[in-house]
């Protein structure tokens, strides 16, 4: 009886999370694609639901809601389900859909999917060797073996994303960094783009015309058969075909140029939109927020110790909300950029995997920011992992990622205005 009503109070939000994940999948990620395999949508929503439940459990822990035994029970339950999903279900389906895309392996899809999964498990297990994440007293089949490895992967991902985000977020929102783009800059680039397309068209017309004439005169290369044909084509190639290959090379170069111009124009348009956005009320709000956030990030980069546990806890709350939102936005952008109707299933599952590992590691790392009295439940549930290792590992990767991002963005920022000045 004691376990019934708390279970209900967990089920309702979990159903809500599942529903949210489902809708997000349908309305955002897959809005231009056809869902042919509902299992993908289900797996994504389940991963999302159980990941969010973990955050919910932390909050319950801090608020002291429900009895500690029921909280402990739900922690364990949630953890087992999430590990099951992240280590068995999602990797297996990723392997299955990747194999489905390869024509050669179509016949024995299931067999090859199992092969892929076993390979994954092998490397997953090997991951434990170089890192000092376990104490020797843990048995080989304990849950700590699994969590520790998931933790390493997840923490690395988190640190990479946070490092990049810490640098990119102020760069994107703060108007100080926005390059000045005028309408005439964009028009000039568009003009160049269309001129290039026109050149391509006229050269292709010439190629088509020449080919037609060659065909009508019987000079077509495909008609040169037999030994005489080969000798003739080697000793005295018809002048037209030499001309043709030259023009074709010019066309190839122009096409490459047109692609570059297109991408540059898109970049300028995006910058112009960001400038316009920064003039709106929302834009100004985010600009100010950007300044505060960048100060916080700089602070973090230099690893200043928090002088109040409870301020850090409020930050935990903010971090949870913004990181879920930030993660979803980043995942969506990434998905739009690289997916196609063939690979969409695989990519969504990979995103689900990243999302799950990200959330599990968030719990691991959050332990550091939580006030002492609440750390015990996390320690109890996750077993005796070497938490310090994870914190140090996060800081190292975060620093590396942030510094590389600064370098990368500095180079990109420097290069861009010069490109346009040569116009």
């Amino acid at each position: 009886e004691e376990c019934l009503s708390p279970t209900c109070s967990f089920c309702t939000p979990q159903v809500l999370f599942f529903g949210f994940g489902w809708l997000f999948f349908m309305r955002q990620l897959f809005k231009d694609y056809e869902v042919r395999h509902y299992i993908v949508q289900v797996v994504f929503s389940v991963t999302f639901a159980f990941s969010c439940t973990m955050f919910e459990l932390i909050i319950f822990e801090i608020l002291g809601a429900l009895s500690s035994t029921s909280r402990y029970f739900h922690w364990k339950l949630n953890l087992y389900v999430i590990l099951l999903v992240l280590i068995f279900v999602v990797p297996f389906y990723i392997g299955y859909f990747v194999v489905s895309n390869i024509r050669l392996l179509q016949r024995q899809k299931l067999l090859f999917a199992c092969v892929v999964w076993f390979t994954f498990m092998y490397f997953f297990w090997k991951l434990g060797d170089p890192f000092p994440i376990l104490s020797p007293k843990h048995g080989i089949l304990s849950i700590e073996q699994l969590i520790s490895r998931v933790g390493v992967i997840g923490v690395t991902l988190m640190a990479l994303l946070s490092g990049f985000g810490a640098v990119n977020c102020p760069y994107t929102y703060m108007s100080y960094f926005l390059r000045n783009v005028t309408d005439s800059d964009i028009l000039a680039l568009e003009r160049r783009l269309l001129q290039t397309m026109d050149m391509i068209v006229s050269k292709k017309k010439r190629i088509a015309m020449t080919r037609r004439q060659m065909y009508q005169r019987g000079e077509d290369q495909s008609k040169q058969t037999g030994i005489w044909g080969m000798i003739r084509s080697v000793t005295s190639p018809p002048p037209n075909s030499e001309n043709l290959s030259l023009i074709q090379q010019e066309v190839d170069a122009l096409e490459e140029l047109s692609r570059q111009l297109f991408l540059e124009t898109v970049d300028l348009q995006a910058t112009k939109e960001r400038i316009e956005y920064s003039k709106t009320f929302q834009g100004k709000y985010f600009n100010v927020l950007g300044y505060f956030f960048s100060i916080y990030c700089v602070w973090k980069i230099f690893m200043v110790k928090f002088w109040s546990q409870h301020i850090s806890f409020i930050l935990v709350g903010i971090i949870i909300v913004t990181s879920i939102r930030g993660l979803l936005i980043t995942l969506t952008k990434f998905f739009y950029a690289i997916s196609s109707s063939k690979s969409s299933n695989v990519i969504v599952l990979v995103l689900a995997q990243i999302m799950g590992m990200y959330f599990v590691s968030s719990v691991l790392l959050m332990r550091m920011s939580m006030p002492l009295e609440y750390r015990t439940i996390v320690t109890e549930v996750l077993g005796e992992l070497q938490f310090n290792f994870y914190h140090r590992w996060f800081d190292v990767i975060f620093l590396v990622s942030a510094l590389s991002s600064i370098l990368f963005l500095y180079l990109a920022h420097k290069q861009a205005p010069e490109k346009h000045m040569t116009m």
Partner: protein
Amino acid sequence: MASLDRIKVLVLGDSGVGKSSLVHLLCQNQVLGNPSWTVGCSVDVRVHDYKEGTPEEKTFYIELWDVGGSVGSASSVKSTRAVFYSSVNGIILVHDLTNKKSSQNLYRWSLEALNKDSSPTGVIVTNGDYDREKFAENPVPLLMIGTKFDQIPENKRNDVLTRTAFLSEDFNAEEINLDCTNPRYLAAGSSNAVKLSRFFDKVIEKRYFTKEPNQMTGFTDRKRFNFKNLHYD
């Protein structure tokens, strides 16, 4: 070649439906061996004999502009893409017969392209809603091509063909269903080849033999057009 002798046909559709393969088939009469992502726009030229087999036969070069991307692209990509939609003489809408969404997205594609058309007679209402009457009055000839015909399972074939027939009625366009990796669908004399030929003939007729506003530069995009009369050889 005088710059006024240009016939431009857009090829639109979701990414992955096979526009590049289709354009290659239409222009080179060959199957495209290694399709890859189209960045921006790729153009090819088709040699078309207008009124083939009659005394009025004349050769025209039709430009097929294959615009890459998806309807869900970022607005910066859409604004850049719009550059390619100026002074269009015909549109080929391509969809994947095994993917319903790609067929539904054709409404959005056609609106995106036709809204940008600078014809001062105001072809399509710009509030973004589909309006059948407006498509009926649309002076730009449309052709609908469904790809991956060979990949439809036998039992679903009728449903798919019924659905696409309705779709082509909505657009007031002819439809052709084929497989871009097999040239026999467009073999000379086949009904598909006849429809294709008729479409291009219609495009040429509208371009040269009727007084059409889209022959002249539009008012809104005049800034972009001042350089278009320069021709490079």
